[in-house]
């Protein structure tokens, strides 16, 4: 029933975004402290590079680019689901406390757990993931009411409250600690993509491979849930069950991303919103656009952030916030 005009527009946009991602990725691979010549990228990819070239490409740049794209995609999809679920265009994984939940878990783990360098980096995503899931669970419990079930508006309010409380806890936690340790946590919070290694890619990829088709499968239900609760029930949607499944999906996606990238806000807000402005509010149309857009946005932010300042650059999360905050204000002003 969707007008062919929109379908065509979506296809064109999807192609455009894929080209943009490939283009930005190649720029990102070439740039950096250890430069890789652009006309060497393709030969190196095909296995004809020198040892140094292969090392830079396969062990440094490529994993980083891939993880950035995947995390951006996961955040965008999570935001898209939350926005449809809560019928609120300002919903974002950060708003339901996922970032801060993961943050507190990472801080606690980092500060109080004896560090063994080897296993530490691989434990961190798990810890962040657990923190995010537990926070989401609490938010769900507090916004659940016996008679009316899960109220989306209430969930946002509870989420914002949790998010603030957890940020406060984090301040207390890190204010009494040594500088060195605080540095890492501060960077994590700012959204520094640190998990740029192949194992992290294998950790995040399955979520996307399963949950992207799952979300598209649920697109029609999301459309109806976005319309009105009564209408959704009336056409036979088991509304409570769907909400829980979709909420878990959104949390899983966002946590898997946040666990390797640190606290990145605004991608989950911006990508679905821009996608809706481009192809309209139908979930099956805007979700794929939002996913690619999210991947691309985070990739741009990381590429810019990585090269803008020597020697370490600035975290991608900060670059995203620099674009995202004005966009958020624009959204607020536009609705008035």
């Amino acid at each position, binding site marked *: *029933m*969707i*007008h062919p005009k929109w379908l065509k527009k979506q296809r064109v946009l999807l192609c455009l975004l894929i080209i943009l991602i490939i283009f930005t990725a190649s720029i990102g691979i070439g740039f950096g402290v250890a430069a890789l010549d652009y006309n060497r990228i393709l030969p190196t990819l095909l296995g004809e590079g020198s040892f140094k070239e292969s090392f830079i490409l396969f062990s440094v740049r490529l994993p980083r680019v891939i993880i950035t794209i995947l995390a951006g995609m996961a955040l965008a999809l999570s935001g898209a689901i939350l926005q449809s679920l809560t019928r609120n265009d300002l919903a974002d994984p950060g708003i339901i406390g996922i970032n801060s939940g993961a943050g507190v878990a990472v801080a606690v783990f980092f500060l109080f757990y004896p560090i063994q360098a080897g296993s530490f980096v691989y434990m961190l995503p798990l810890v962040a993931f657990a923190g995010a899931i537990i926070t989401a669970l609490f938010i769900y419990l507090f916004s659940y009411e016996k*008679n*009316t079930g899960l109220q989306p508006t209430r969930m946002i309010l509870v989420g914002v409250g949790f998010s603030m409380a957890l940020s406060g806890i984090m301040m207390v936690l890190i204010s009494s600690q040594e500088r060195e340790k605080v540095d890492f946590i501060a960077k994590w919070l700012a959204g520094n993509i640190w998990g740029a290694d192949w194992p992290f890619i294998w950790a995040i990829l399955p979520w996307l491979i399963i949950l992207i088709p799952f979300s*598209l*499968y649920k*697109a*029609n239900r999301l*459309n*109806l849930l*976005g*319309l*009105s*609760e*009564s*209408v959704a*029930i*009336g*056409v*036979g*949607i*088991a509304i409570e069950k769907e909400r829980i499944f979709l909420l878990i999906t959104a949390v899983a996606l966002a946590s898997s991303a946040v666990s390797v990238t640190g606290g990145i806000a605004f991608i989950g807000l911006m990508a679905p919103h821009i996608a809706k402005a481009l192809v*309209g*509010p*139908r979930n*099956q149309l805007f979700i794929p656009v939002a996913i690619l857009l999210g991947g691309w946005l985070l990739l741009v932010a990381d590429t810019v952030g990585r090269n803008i300042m020597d020697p370490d650059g600035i975290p991608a999360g900060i670059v995203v916030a620099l674009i995202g905050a004005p966009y958020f204000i624009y959204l607020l002003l536009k609705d008035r």
Partner: protein
Amino acid sequence: MSRLQTDNINIGYGEQLIVKNLSVTIPDKKITTIIGANGCGKSTLLKAITRIISHQSGSIVLDGEDILKQNTKLLAKKMAILPQTTESANGLTVGELVSYGRFPYQSGFGRLKQKDYEVIDWALDVTGTAEFKFRPVESLSGGQRQRAWIAMALAQETDIIFLDEPTTYLDMAHQLEVLELLQKLNREQGRTIVMVLHDLNQAARFADSIIALKDGEIVKAGDAEKVLTHEVLEEVFQIDAEIGKDPRTNRPMCITYNLKKKEIGK
């Protein structure tokens, strides 16, 4: 034996009961309207019967089984509901909105089949909204929009259709347009219509059976002659009504009314 009845149901929010011990039978293939003052529980009753809210005790039985025990998607093939405030359609076209009514018949990724398209076109035709198929719902007038939403409910192909104040916010002509459409659906296709109406004369004119509610309990139920009486209206609305006959339809109608004088101090 009627397909749909409630047996001693209690419905409430928290501690407060809105509908108390209510037992009612909805006659098949007839138009039933529910009337009553604001807050008497008429919308609540409609929402409970359509499982939008759950009832605390008692049972609501459709085809021999409590609705809360039935599969909600299968139930959506038996009854459709048009809620009171139909929210903004989010940029959807009329055709898309109506296609959402096909949800109970879809599986997998929800691709529409030939049969779905036929039903959608039929629903658009019968509600006179076919010309708006590719127009955004927002661009329609109130009456047209209401008909588009009715078309969505029709696309569900259910024997029973519930409507919560389908004529609110419409002007006199559009109110009649909607009611006549429902009457046509009832007469020509034998669909059971259950609706909440505010206008007593419209209720008397279109309904085969009227349920008058007060404080969550039934004051009187039956045909218009039985319910639209001075005594019933006095109890339900605290009004002193003058009942006459509609010269065109011969149905009872409330010609004029006054508020019942309240005794000072009570």
